[in-house]
């Protein structure tokens, strides 16, 4: 087998710097939005005492979930020994770090007191799953950083497998932690389900791989390098399996909820008469994020179409975004049932009614800037480090396939 050669991602300067400049512009917009919200207070957002986590949280959770999934390709390469995936390991690590950083930036800037970062990282309540998550995130950066190093430095190479294993388990813990943020909220009917954690893991596989495919294709297009059909087909089939599993888990989640009579209200809300949330579930999550991508990935008509793969990955991301939106916002909009068997006639605090939420531009800009931060880090990282193979042509000898 020919040794894979890695090279920094060079493309013509105007193309690179022009691209980077537009990314930085979008980040500046996001920072402006964050400053505007911090300066005025959250009253300029659509968030309220009813919907306390809004659009920025949707972006942040989406990116954090995708981050751990992006590491999957590296894990398959070095933990499970998939030869076709091995050359992709470095890029997978870089993308994972970028996505996590993007998500965390949004989370941090959406705090009521972002200036209290020091408090957040020095004062811990170890009973809080949130505090655990902070440790999981920091650990993820460290471990994936070391993993990248082990993959890139020959002297350090002997640690690659053990660190690879550590990274693999860490990322499972991380997504479990993210899922558990919701799994622990016993009072809210939409969240009180043990399946939340495993469902988040499979969601991470799917979103992470979709991000991976898109950024990889974009990078190779950007730098005029080639990716072989075989390798893309592998990635595409894997994505199909993950997309199918996400649909399956969503089905199980709703079926188990329907089994518990107490949860019929919230199920009805999401599946039937929740207005925008019902639409987002069926059209966004199921059709755009599930059925169409599956069709694009598996239909023989698109068997060799790279465009179809790119579109399918994009749709998986859009559908995934809707899925998190429905979980985070829909789950809060549905009223908590404080008084079973009673109907609320009057309350100044929206008891018993579906809470309204319409995000403002500032929230959208901040959230989107998180995605851009991730992409910028990847673009800079790929130019400075040798993470991308010079060529991803399919290997000539079929054996290693």
């Amino acid at each position, binding site marked *: 087998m020919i040794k894979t050669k890695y090279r920094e991602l060079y493309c013509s300067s105007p193309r690179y710097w022009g691209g980077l400049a537009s990314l930085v512009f979008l980040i500046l917009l996001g920072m402006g939005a964050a400053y505007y919200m911090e300066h005025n*207070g959250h*009253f300029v957002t659509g968030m309220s005492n009813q919907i306390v*986590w809004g659009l920025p949280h949707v972006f942040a959770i989406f990116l954090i979930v995708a981050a751990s999934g992006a590491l999957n390709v590296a894990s398959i390469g070095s933990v499970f020994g998939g030869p076709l995936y091995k050359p992709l390991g470095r890029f997978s690590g870089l993308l994972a770090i970028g996505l996590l950083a993007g998500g965390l930036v949004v989370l941090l800037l959406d705090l009521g007191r972002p200036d209290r970062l020091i408090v957040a990282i020095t004062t811990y*309540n170890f009973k809080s799953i*949130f505090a655990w998550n*902070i440790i999981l995130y920091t650990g993820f950066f460290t471990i994936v950083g070391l993993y990248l190093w082990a993959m890139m430095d020959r002297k350090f190479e002997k640690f690659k497998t053990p660190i690879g294993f550590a990274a693999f388990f860490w990322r499972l813990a991380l997504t479990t932690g993210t899922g558990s943020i919701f799994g622990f909220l016993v*009072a809210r009917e939409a969240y009180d389900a043990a399946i939340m954690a495993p469902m988040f893991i499979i969601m991470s596989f799917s979103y992470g791989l979709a991000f991976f495919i898109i950024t990889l294709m974009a990078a190779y297009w950007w730098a005029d390098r080639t990716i072989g059909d075989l390798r893309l087909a592998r990635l595409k089939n894997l994505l199909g399996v993950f997309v199918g599993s996400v649909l399956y888990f969503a089905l199980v989640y709703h079926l188990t909820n329907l089994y518990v009579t107490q949860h019929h209200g919230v199920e009805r809300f999401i599946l039937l008469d929740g207005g925008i949330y019902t639409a987002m579930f069926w059209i966004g999550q199921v059709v755009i994020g599930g059925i169409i991508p599956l069709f694009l990935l598996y239909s023989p008509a698109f068997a060799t179409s790279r465009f179809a793969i790119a579109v399918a990955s994009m749709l998986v991301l859009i559908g995934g975004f809707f899925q998190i939106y429905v979980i985070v916002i829909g789950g809060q909009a549905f009223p908590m049932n404080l008084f079973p068997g009673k109907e609320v006639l009057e309350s*100044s*605090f929206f*008891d018993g009614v579906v809470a309204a939420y319409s995000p403002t531009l500032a929230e959208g800009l901040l959230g989107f800037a998180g995605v851009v931060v991730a992409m910028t880090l990847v673009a800079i990282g790929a130019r400075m480090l040798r993470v991308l193979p010079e060529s991803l042509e399919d290997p000539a000898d079929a054996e290693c396939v």
Partner: protein
Amino acid sequence: MSINNDQPDLQRRNFIGKTVLAAGAATVAPGVMLTVANAGSEEGVSSDVRWGMLIDTNKCADGCTACVEACNKENGIDLIQRPEGQSDEMWDAQRPQWIRKVKLRDTQTGEVSNLPMMCQHCEHPPCVDVCPTGASFKRADGIVMVDRHICIGCRYCMMACPYKARSFIHQNVAEQLTGAPRGKGCVESCNLCANRIDEGQETTACQDACNQEGHKAILFGDLKNPQSEIAQALKTHHSRQIRADLELNTGVRYTNV
């Protein structure tokens, strides 16, 4: 006393936990001195008491909001100004409410009842469990509150509270009371008038207001003292916790719901 300041700069946790009971002065904000009353004990709050409330919904009058108004006044919630350009609906959804009146109808029997809802001062408070920094805390005497100096405004406690008892401060705060310092970006909720209790008083503002209106629907006191009026009443009347299924052992109990 009312001060004009956005973010009071005092260590509230220490302030509450220990210092509040020691006679002394604490610097509240640059140039402002606040005298903290002595509650007569040097040890801080004690777990020998557990403050709680019993609310008789039969006595809670339809349309009366005396408790809500008293709470707003006592804790300076009425000083919070509506930001310019905020719609009515948003103001309702974003302004802090420590206590709210709820009117219910039993779907089966049609019986209508009224009750005030506030922080239930859970013995096992989910808000405290989930708070990453420990800003949400339960005092030894059972009062659950927020240390506004280490609250980072993540709002996870609001997600976790089964009673929607907490409010986030969405706007700049121009004017506030020293007894209830607050700032933009932090979460707060009913603290059973901790400032009054720590001064040695034995009633809450809402209870006083309700009594004054002649309804006497709210009874506040020490649940652990068998001699206290509330302990006696709880012994003889059937009361219940809202969402008792969550087993949070709330300090606020209701009869006739």
